[in-house]
């Protein structure tokens, strides 16, 4: 398995690796066709593509964390909408950093409420977050009856400044690498796999779950800020599509919906893929009904390919499972694995 082929095989069967590959393919198609059509490829095109992707990336990562923990969260779209209209209606001229902190706190608070209902109220997460979603989307319209308002200019220009988007993405990747290896990170994966075992080990499972809900909420808050920055205004309906796209990004990123496994980096590229698809369709001149069909099929392709290869992977791992001699003899040898 340590042959070059083996390693390539490993990348392809690994969710994250596959997401990256799929994304790279789409990007190549897009940019190559773009450059052959009229205007060439300039940095600003890619820059604005990344800026547009940022909110989805951050929100989807929030969703991913909750899913890794073995729970479900539909409230992202609601939080983002509320944050967006709050900024546009009242915080338009506030200190941008304060805005970021406040909005992440707001998101975190909503995450806390979700978590309390799920963990203490013993209600299914999907049901609770569906309810909070409806509530939050309503609140958004109450706060901002019609699109208007402005976003702190520093935020707007800040996010658009060259290399900021790339910078944020790099930061996200590093942050994930660290979080994954932090205690909370390990516990998150553990809960997703077997909360009972963690409980028996004497660890505060509920507290950890709550923590993840809060972190996810805070990330939605941040996503709301980023979206506001790219919309430069408030619109109560602007975030509606996040309800489903966040999950699509997570799935394309190779995170299984069963808990205990998954990767934020995969999700990051899942989100980038989702936003690359329209670009590809555009350069192909795909419009009208074919647009929806092609989009659907590409998403299916991404996900099914993932499911398919991981299916084979499982089968192999079954066959390659190691021997063990429980007597104190030769050591057990098997593929070591980290989370995700």
């Amino acid at each position, binding site marked *: 398995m340590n042959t070059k082929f083996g390693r390539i095989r490993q990348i392809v069967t690994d969710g994250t690796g596959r997401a990256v590959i799929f994304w790279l393919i789409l990007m190549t198609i897009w940019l190559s066709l773009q450059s052959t059509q009229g205007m060439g490829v300039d940095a600003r095109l890619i820059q604005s593509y990344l800026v547009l992707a940022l909110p989805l990336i951050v929100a989807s990562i929030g969703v991913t964390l909750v899913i890794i923990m073995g729970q479900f969260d539909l409230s992202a779209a609601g939080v983002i909408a509320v944050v967006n209209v709050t900024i546009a209606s009242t915080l338009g001229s506030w200190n941008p950093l304060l805005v970021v902190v406040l909005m992440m706190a707001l998101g975190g608070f909503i995450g806390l409420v979700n978590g309390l209902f799920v963990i203490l109220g013993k209600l299914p997460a999907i049901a609770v977050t569906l309810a909070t979603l409806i509530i939050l989307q309503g609140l958004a319209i109450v706060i*901002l009856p019609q699109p*208007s308002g402005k976003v702190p200019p520093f935020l707007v220009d800040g996010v658009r400044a060259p290399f900021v988007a790339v910078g944020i993405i790099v930061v996200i990747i590093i942050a994930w690498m660290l979080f994954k290896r932090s205690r909370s990170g390990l516990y998150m994966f553990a809960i997703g796999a077997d909360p009972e075992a963690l409980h028996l080990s004497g660890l505060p499972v509920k507290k950890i779950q709550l923590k993840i809900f809060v972190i996810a909420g805070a990330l939605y808050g941040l996503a709301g800020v980023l979206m506001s920055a790219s919309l430069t205004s408030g619109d109560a309906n602007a975030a509606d*599509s996040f309800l489903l796209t966040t999950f699509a990004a997570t799935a394309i990123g190779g995170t299984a919906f069963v808990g205990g496994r998954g990767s934020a980096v995969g999700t990051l590229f899942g989100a980038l893929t989702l936003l690359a698809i329209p670009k590809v369709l555009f350069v192909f001149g795909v419009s009208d009904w074919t647009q929806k069909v092609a989009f659907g099929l590409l998403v299916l*392709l991404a996900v099914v390919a993932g499911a398919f290869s991981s299916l084979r992977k499982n089968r192999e791992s079954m066959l390659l499972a190691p021997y063990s001699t429980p007597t104190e003899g030769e050591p057990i040898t098997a593929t070591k694995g980290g989370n995700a």
Partner: protein
Amino acid sequence: MKRNWKVAALAVIAASSLALSACGGSSDTADAGADSSAATEAGADNGNPCGWADAPRAGGDKYVVYMSSLNIGNAWQEEAVNLGSAEALMPPYSDCVELRTERTEPDPASQISQIQSMTAAGADAIVTFALSPTAINATFKEACDAGVTVVIYDATVTEPCAYNVSYITAKPVGSDIPFMGYNAMAALIDMMGGAGDIFVAHGVAGTSVDNVHYLSALAAIDQLAPDMNILTEWDGNWDSAQQQKETTKALASNPNVVGIFCGYGESGCVKALKAANKEIPVTGETSQYFREQLLAGWPGVSIGSPPAQGGIAMKLALGVLEYGPDAGIPHDIEVPFKVVTKDTVMVCEEDTYTEGCNVFPAGVVGDENTADIFNPLLPEASLTSAKTGVPPAGLVAVPFTVDEMKSFEQDPSRRYITREACPEGWTQGKLPEGLDGCVQS
């Protein structure tokens, strides 16, 4: 064995997705072919195609113009984009313009992405329906800065560099009072004899168009029938299915209603009323179904957004390309609309514009299609264009003159509603219709 056919399944998906992209592409090139066939040698004094003000951004012998609407299978959206496309495919424009039609998925990110793509692909003009009056602004600004002419129809945007072609603040033909909401509500009150309780349907909550309609309608109530009650309100989402569902619910809780302020999707309201066999006054927009009901004597007023705005917006865009951005073409155009009641409803000859006609013969178009494709500003409109996006042979566009366009400029007092700002020399104040507007300072 098992695995093999899984592979097959994947292969199928992959293949079909590519196939679709391809056929999408081909369909587009077909459009291009349509006009290039009509293309002639672009000869002109200043060397530009058709002798227009500036050279095409992408070079080439034609101006690249994008026409875009929402991809939601909505009859009105289709007609608007079709009338716009047809305009660019009529002589004289067909020789100067390469038309590219697009559809936008209904979420801001998609539209932003698409506008960016259009700009990058060398658009000279973008004529589009905007999802939000504010959310796309930054992107429109980028396009403007890149030298693209951006024209928005129906709903408006607050970005100053973009041209708004809209009916929202306009006056109906033959009326001195602006605002569709106000006029519709006034007509409803009139039909109800100035008293009684009503339902009010919103469009999509949280949009400016809906807000303007709603507020001006409320203003009408305040001024004309202050003691009238609104029993129930709902979000109709400008969708007849939703309108019907909501009307049915509302009738369940308030069967004693005597009038409905319905708006787009009115056929849903009427159908729900019929199911409950109640024949009460309804305000609706311009669907063929509703106009036919009026023809059959239903008490109602049909007054709504003309899809002709698509064509008008296209003409404006081409005008800007022809005369140049500095020719003084106004950025705010008000498109007049018609008020039709059971007394003024009149059947058209199929596919031609006879003055005053406002409904097609039964069976020519579908229930949801709008009966109101003709507009004083778009005499060259035709049913074929509205249906297919391709003008019937021999039909010729009637270009605007700059003065013509100026004559339809929006009244500055109503500028605040669409731009959230007043022109210089004006300050924010209340309009006679009760809305925020601008007053001369």
